[in-house]
C-alpha cells in the first residue's frame, strides 16, 4: 500500500510502485480531471501540484510521491473560485478543454512563485503545456487577469 495526500485527504493505494501517478489518480482514485496527453512529459495535460510545485503525473511513479501533498484540478479550489479559474471563466479561455486542467494548474503555480509575471515569464512557465485548440492568446491574457485578481484579493 502506498500512502499519499491528495487534495487534503490521506489516501491508501493498492498500486504497483511504478504505476504513473496519472493512472493512479484517474483509474484508482477516479479523479479524471487530470488528463492524459502524451505519457512522456511532452504536453503538460497531466500537470498536478506536488507540495505546490507543478509536476507531470504521467512520468511520476506513484511511489515517488508517497507521503507528499498532491493537488489536482479537483482540489485547486472549493467552488472553482481560484483566481486562475475566475480569470479563465471571465475571459472564456477554454475550447475543447482537454488541456485546461494542466494549463490552470501550471498558471496557478506560476502565480504562487511570481505575482506579476511578464510575457517572458509566462512563456517560460507555460511552454510545457500544449493546447491544440490554440487558446494561448487567451491563456496569456487570463494569467495577467488572474494576477490582478490575486493581488486585489491580497490587498
Amino acid at each position, binding site marked *: 500500500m502506498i500512502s499519499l495526500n491528495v487534495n487534503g485527504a490521506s489516501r491508501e493505494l493498492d498500486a504497483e510502485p511504478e504505476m504513473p501517478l496519472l493512472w493512479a489518480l484517474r483509474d484508482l482514485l477516479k479523479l479524471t480531471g487530470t488528463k492524459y496527453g502524451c505519457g512522456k512529459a511532452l504536453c503538460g495535460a497531466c500537470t498536478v501540484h506536488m507540495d505546490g510545485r507543478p509536476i507531470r503525473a504521467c512520468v511520476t511513479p506513484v511511489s515517488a510521491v508517497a507521503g507528499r501533498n498532491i493537488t489536482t484540478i479537483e482540489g485547486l479550489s472549493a467552488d472553482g473560485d481560484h483566481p486562475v479559474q475566475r480569470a479563465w471563466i471571465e475571459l472564456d*479561455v477554454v*475550447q475543447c*478543454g482537454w488541456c485546461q486542467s494542466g494549463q490552470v494548474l501550471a498558471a496557478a503555480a506560476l502565480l504562487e512563485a511570481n505575482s506579476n509575471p511578464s510575457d517572458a515569464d509566462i512563456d517560460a512557465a507555460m511552454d510545457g503545456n500544449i493546447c*491544440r485548440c490554440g*487558446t494561448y492568446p487567451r491563456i496569456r491574457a487570463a494569467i495577467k487577469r488572474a494576477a490582478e485578481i490575486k493581488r486585489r484579493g491580497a490587498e
Partner: protein
Amino acid sequence: MNADTNAGRRHFLIGTAVIGAGLVIGINVARRRGTATRSGGGGKTLSPNVWLRIAPDDTVTLASGKAEMGQGITTGLAIALGEELDIDPARIVVEFAGVDKAYYHPFLPAQFTGGSNSTVTTHEVLRQVGATARAMLLAAAAKKWDTTVAELRTDNGVVHYGSRKLSYGELADAAAGEVLATKQKLKTQAEFKYIGKTQPRNDTRVKVTGRAKFGLDVDVPDMLTAMIARAPVFGATVKSFDDSEARKIQGVVAVKQVPSGVAVLAENTWAAQRGRDALKVDWNLGPMARFDVAQVRADYRAKIRKPGLIARNDGDALQALQSAGSRSIDVEYELPFLAHATMEPMNCAVHARADGADIWVGTQGHSLDVENAAEILGLKADQVRLHVQYLGGGFGRRANTVSDFTVEATHVAKDVGRPVKTVWTREDDMQGGYYRPFSVSRVRAAIDKDGKPLAWYHNCVSQPVLATSAFAKFAVLPDGRDPSSSEGSANLPYAFPNIRVDSINGVNGVPILWWRSVANSFHGFVVNSAMDELAALAGMDPVKFRRSLLGKRPRHLAVLDRAAEMANWGRPLAPGHYHGVALHESFDSIVAQVAEVSVDGAEVKVHKVHCAVDCGTAVNPGQVEAQMQSGIIFGLSAALWGEITFKDGRVQQSNFDSYRVLRMSEAPAIEVSIINSGAALGGIGEPGTPPIAPAVCAAIFAATGKRIRKLPIAGSLA
C-alpha cells in the same frame, strides 16, 4: 396529422433533400403532443420536440444533437434557442442527445458534427424551437388569465400580464397541451437580445474544475480497459501472437484478437499498457511493407503533368496559356500527410449485451457510429444507445464515417460481458492513420504586359476524402470526381477571363480523413501562393494585385481591405519584420490574414496575425474570435513543422517530440475583426485555418526572396 403521415412526410422531405427547419418543428410538435413527461414536481414537462424540455421547476434543457469539441456549439445553440424562447442562454442547461432522425443533417441521412455546419444547419431550427415553445407558453397563459396573447409579454423565462406573472416552468404543464404546428414568425435583427452579442461559453466552469466528462473519463461499474497492439504497417494482419507474458501482468484479464490487432483487456490503463507491451505479435506486413512517401511524391508529380477531372472551366485556359507571352508561371506545390493530433487521443467505451449495447464516446459521427456498431453486434441501430461525451478536440479526426475507433472498441467489447473502454496512447493515435491527404498541385497562370489576368489553370492530385467515405454515394459525380477535392480551388474568386480547375484522384494505402478545412487546407495555400507569385511577376503589391481582380466580389474585397487596414499594410515594420497576406473563402465564410514574420536562417518567427472574417452574421462574436485564433494556431503548427512521413511502411512520427506543434512562446499575437455583412450564415470552425500558411510564406518571400512551394516550411528552409 397522425403519426404515420408525419413519418411519411419526414421521409419524403429527407429523400428530396429539401427539408425545411420550420416543418421539422411542426412535425415534431405534433409528434410529441400528449406525450409530455411527468416530472418530480407533480406537473408535466413541456417537451415540444427532441431539442427542448421545460420542466415545472423552471429547468430549461436543450438536448444537443451536436457534439462539443471546443467550437462553442452548445453555447451557440443555447443562444439561438434563448433568443426566441426569450430566456437568457446562460440559464439553459445543455445535455448531449443520442441519435434521433430529427437531428439528421438536412442533406445527408446522418447525424454528425462537422463541416463547419452546426450553426449553419441548426441555428434556424433552434430559433423555431424557441419561438414555437414560447408561443405554446403564451397560449397557455392566455387561457389561464382569460385574455389574448397580444396582451402578454415575456422576459427571461417569465410571462407577464399586467402585474401578474407566471414562469415558464409554472406554465409548462398547461402549455404541453397546446397544439401549434405552424411555423412561427422569428425576431428581426433589431429585436435580438442575445444573437450577435458575445455570450459566455456554457462549458467553461466544468472545464476549469475538471468536472467535464470526456470519452476517456468514462467510468461505468465493472468496466475494463483495453489497449490494442495494432499493425505496424497499414493493411498488415496478425500472423500469430504469444500472450503468455502479457497474461502474467497483474491486472490483465483477457487477451483477444480483433480485426485491427490484438487487444489486452485489464482492470486499469496501466495494466493494459504493460500487458500490451508484453505481447509478442508476428505480422503479415502486406503490400505496404516498403511504403515510403517518396513513392507517392513520384506518382503524384507524374500524374500532375496530365489533365484531371474538370471541376471548373470558364473560357479556354489551355489555349490562353499557350498563346500567352513570357509573363506566366508554371509552379508545383507539395503538401504532406498531417495528423490531427487532438489533445485527447482516441478512445471509446462499449457495453455489448445480447439485447442491446451502450456506447460512451466523444464522436463527431453520432449515427454512423451507432449503425456501424450495431452491425458488428447483430443488433438494430435503435438497440444501441449512444452517450456522447465532450470531445478533447476533433478537427475531423472524430468524424470517421467508418467509425474506426468505435468499430474497434465494439469488436473488443463483443462477447466480453463487461463494459470495455478501449484507450489509445499518443503513439497509437499519431500512427493510427486517418491523415490529411498528401497533395501535389500545379498552377499555370498568365498575365498580359499590363499585369491584367489572362488565364489560370489549377490542377491537384490527392486522395479524395468524400469519395473514400460512406457518404460517397451521395456526393461523387458520374465521372468519378469528388467535389470535396476541389473545395477551395474551384471557387477561385479572382476575375481571370479563362479559368480551369481540375482534380485527380490519388491512390495509395494510407487511411485519410477530413482535417480541419479539408481540401481548403491545401488549396488555400496553393491559390494564395500562386497569386503572390503572379503579383511579383506583375510588379504589383500583393494586396493591390488581388484588389484589381475582385471587382465583382465586394465581400472578399471588404475582408481583404479590413485585414490590410488592421495591419497598416504597406507601412514600414520593425527592422527585419515582413508582412504577407492571404485571402480565402471556405464553408461560406471569407477570411483574410496578414502575418508579420521575421526569418533567421531556418527559424521563422510569426509575431502577429491580423485576421478579418465575414461569416455573414456572427452569432457569438467572442467565439468567432476564438475560432479564428484557434484556426490560425492550428494551421501555423502544420505550416511550420507538420508532417507525417513513412519509412518501410512505418509512420516516422510518434509523439509531440517528433510531431512538433505550436507552444505558448511560439504563438503569435492575433487580432480579429468581424465584418457582419448580413450574408447567409457561414461556418466558423475551419475557415481560420487555410490562409495562415500562405500568409506566412508570402512574408518569408518578402523577407528572403525564397518561395516556399513545399510544406512544412521547416523542411523547405533547412
